């Protein structure tokens, strides 16, 4: 790995490919550490613009929980400085249990998060009905995770890219080839830096075919503006217990109300489908599911729907670190649906490795080595 003083390339100390939320957070963090950063972005629609901006701590594994908790904490620390157009809110997540089995999952989750020091509480069906009266009556209960939040990720990314202009330079360019710490642009020009960071989500595959990423297609829909009636981000626990389990296409209830009053409705998941057009049947299923939880939703107007692709690694955790076979090429990809949530933590983990400083979390679960070859320069 390279020491700070050695990172003196031609274009910058570090070139970051991708100006989405991951690239922006990495640029901001590396700049804070004194590095000159050049961010190359080709302005194609990608996951940052497509996602829900839900800051949510998941706990499929201890590593995921650790990175999620750390990252959301960092977002909350950033919140006071963020401009209003980032629409950051610490509104909390309600994990909804429809039945006893899902309530058991809520209790398990409650224990896991509490043990980790996260503020959360179990709610009875009656307490849930009081907290969110728009929900259909008769739900079993819920788990409230108070530290979770929402933000408008495209503006958050823009803000992170713009707030240290003396160290972060943005360039509108498409990268067509990567070789270690060198990149070739669409116009044929080669750029070089001390390090190159791939932070372009699913498109990392195009530049580095051995990065094991799969696209998981999702649909979202947003409504017209309505008076605020939902305060938390609402997610069904079926999201973890049944709806999104397995490899078939699935839908799960996930709704938040933006500060604009618009209801943001998800979610769907489809594998091996890289067609960005809207799958009408999938959209219909997703909305039917949402109406099942929020009966009044049916009479509200949907104004816009779109799709996006989650960039998933085989174990669902991101790849953060140097490419084992290409010295100088670093990866910050494979965040699946959690890119916005874990962007801040990802940036810290990447910077610690690049600059040889002690990492704030255990790195093992995120190192690219778990999928790609053996370290070439061990």
């Amino acid at each position: 790995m390279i020491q700070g003083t050695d990172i003196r390339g031609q274009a910058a100390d570090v070139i970051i490919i991708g100006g989405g939320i991951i690239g922006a957070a990495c640029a901001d963090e590396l700049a804070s550490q004194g590095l000159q950063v050049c961010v190359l972005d080709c302005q194609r629609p990608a996951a940052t613009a497509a996602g829900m901006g839900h800051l949510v701590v998941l706990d499929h594994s201890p590593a995921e929980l650790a990175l999620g908790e750390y990252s959301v904490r960092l977002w909350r620390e950033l919140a006071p400085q963020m401009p209003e157009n980032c629409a950051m809110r610490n509104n909390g997540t309600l994990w909804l249990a429809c039945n006893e089995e899902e309530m058991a999952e809520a209790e398990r989750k409650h224990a896991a998060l509490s043990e980790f020091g996260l503020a959360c509480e179990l709610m009875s069906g009656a307490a849930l009905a009081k907290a969110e009266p728009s929900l259909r009556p008769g739900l079993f209960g819920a788990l409230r995770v108070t530290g979770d939040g929402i933000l408008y990720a495209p503006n958050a990314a823009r803000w992170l890219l713009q707030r240290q202009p003396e160290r972060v330079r943005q360039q509108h360019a498409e990268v067509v080839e990567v070789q270690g710490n060198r990149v070739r642009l669409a116009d044929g020009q080669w750029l070089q830096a001390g390090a190159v960071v791939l932070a372009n989500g699913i498109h990392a595959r195009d530049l580095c075919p051995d990065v094991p990423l799969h696209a998981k297609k999702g649909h979202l829909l947003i409504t017209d503006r309505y008076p605020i009636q939902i305060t938390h981000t609402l997610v069904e626990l079926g999201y973890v217990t049944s709806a999104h389990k397995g490899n078939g296409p699935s839908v799960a209830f996930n709704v938040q109300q933006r500060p604009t009053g618009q209801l943001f409705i998800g979610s769907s998941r489809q594998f091996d489908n890289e067609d960005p057009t809207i799958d009408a049947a999938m959209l219909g299923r997703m909305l039917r599911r949402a109406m099942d939880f929020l009966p009044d939703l049916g009479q509200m107007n949907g104004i816009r729907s779109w799709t996006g692709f989650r960039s998933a690694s085989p174990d669902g955790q991101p790849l953060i670190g140097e490419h084992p076979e290409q010295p100088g090429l670093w990866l910050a990809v494979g965040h699946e649906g959690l890119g916005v949530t874990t962007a801040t933590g990802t940036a810290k983990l990447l910077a610690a490795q690049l600059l040889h400083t002690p990492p704030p979390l255990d790195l093992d679960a995120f190192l690219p080595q778990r999928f790609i070859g053996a370290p070439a320069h061990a």
Partner: protein
Amino acid sequence: MTRPVDLLIIGAGPAGMAAALAAAPSGISIVVLDDNPLPGGQIWRDGPNAQLPTVATEMRAQLQRYSNIHLHSGTKVVAIAGPKRLLLEDAERGWVLGYEKLILCTGARELLLPFPGWTLPGVTGAGGLQALIKSGVPVSGERIVIAGSGPLLLASAATAKKNGAEVVRIAEQAGRRAVSGFALGLWRWPNKAFQAVTLASGAYRLSAHVIEALGSDRLEAVRMQTGSRVEEIACDRLACGFSLVPNTELGSALGCEVRDRAIVVDEWQTTGLTDHYAAGECTGFGGSELALVEGKIAGLVAVGRQEEARAHWPERQRWQRFADRLNQAFTLDPALKTLATADTLVCRCEDVPYAELADHASWNSAKLNTRCGMGACQGRICATAAHTLFGWEPPRLRPPFSPARIATLACLDEPAA
């Protein structure tokens, strides 16, 4: 899902009504969808203050006489549910309708170009003003300025005058040579000659266009450029009609080819997509007479009566020539693309000013960075303006094509019958 209908016609303007009436004698089942409360389209829009021409009332009466024609007024197409299946919505319900053949008669809408003050209350489109008046909005005694280009200005002025407004100015952006050339050619189309008479109105100015709408809470005056002179005209309403833009979005979403802002059809009014036809303004602006004959041809072809359809080709050609002359005479002056200033809103839904858009290279980039086009109109107004101002290709529509109830959209989960 209900049983598929033999022929589905989208739009009950002149083209759609003509298509339905031409196809109806075959006895097949026909559904005509229209988003207005009553058939007639924009040109024959009905309302308390409307006076419809005889041809319009007769066609409406005939539509009712055929038991195999079902008219769904106040109904919009929300999404494509699958091959030959559309998701529809009216005030009460949403449902999926299948069809064997489809004729697109989706008409045209006004091109709204941004200029300083265009979002002030009191500023509308020229066709918008006509629609307001016909729906019963009183304009008696109001001072009205009508600006833009083409015969729509005159039609709009006529409606306003008939309802007691004082039309203080009609500003035609085209120059004397273009307009008089067009007017002189009108002898070829005798029933169009009345418009030439209106050209002599004292309020009519050539080479004139709006620079700015003035007012604090609502419109108070208009600053106009007439030739090299700038003047301010006090008024209560400003109606702008720069041109009409064919509604090609549904055709495009279905997969029909769109070229030069119009759905591409051959001499049989067929699109490149099997069993899909298009007629009227959505295939290029041409006026109601052209729309009627195109609709008739499409309706006949859809029921296999090609020979009868062919007999209408000369008539279509005649009106196409008229349309070509018209479009040539009233070509928009590029100066109209530079009226907006840095802070003029282009996207009204998301409050995006001109300056925020101008630096972008494409609609996608602008949308991604400014939220332009992400509001309830889905860019129908601003993407069309941006196409004219910056040359950006408008995006392909995604469902919902216009705001629709979630309960309607949930019907998309129904499997095909």
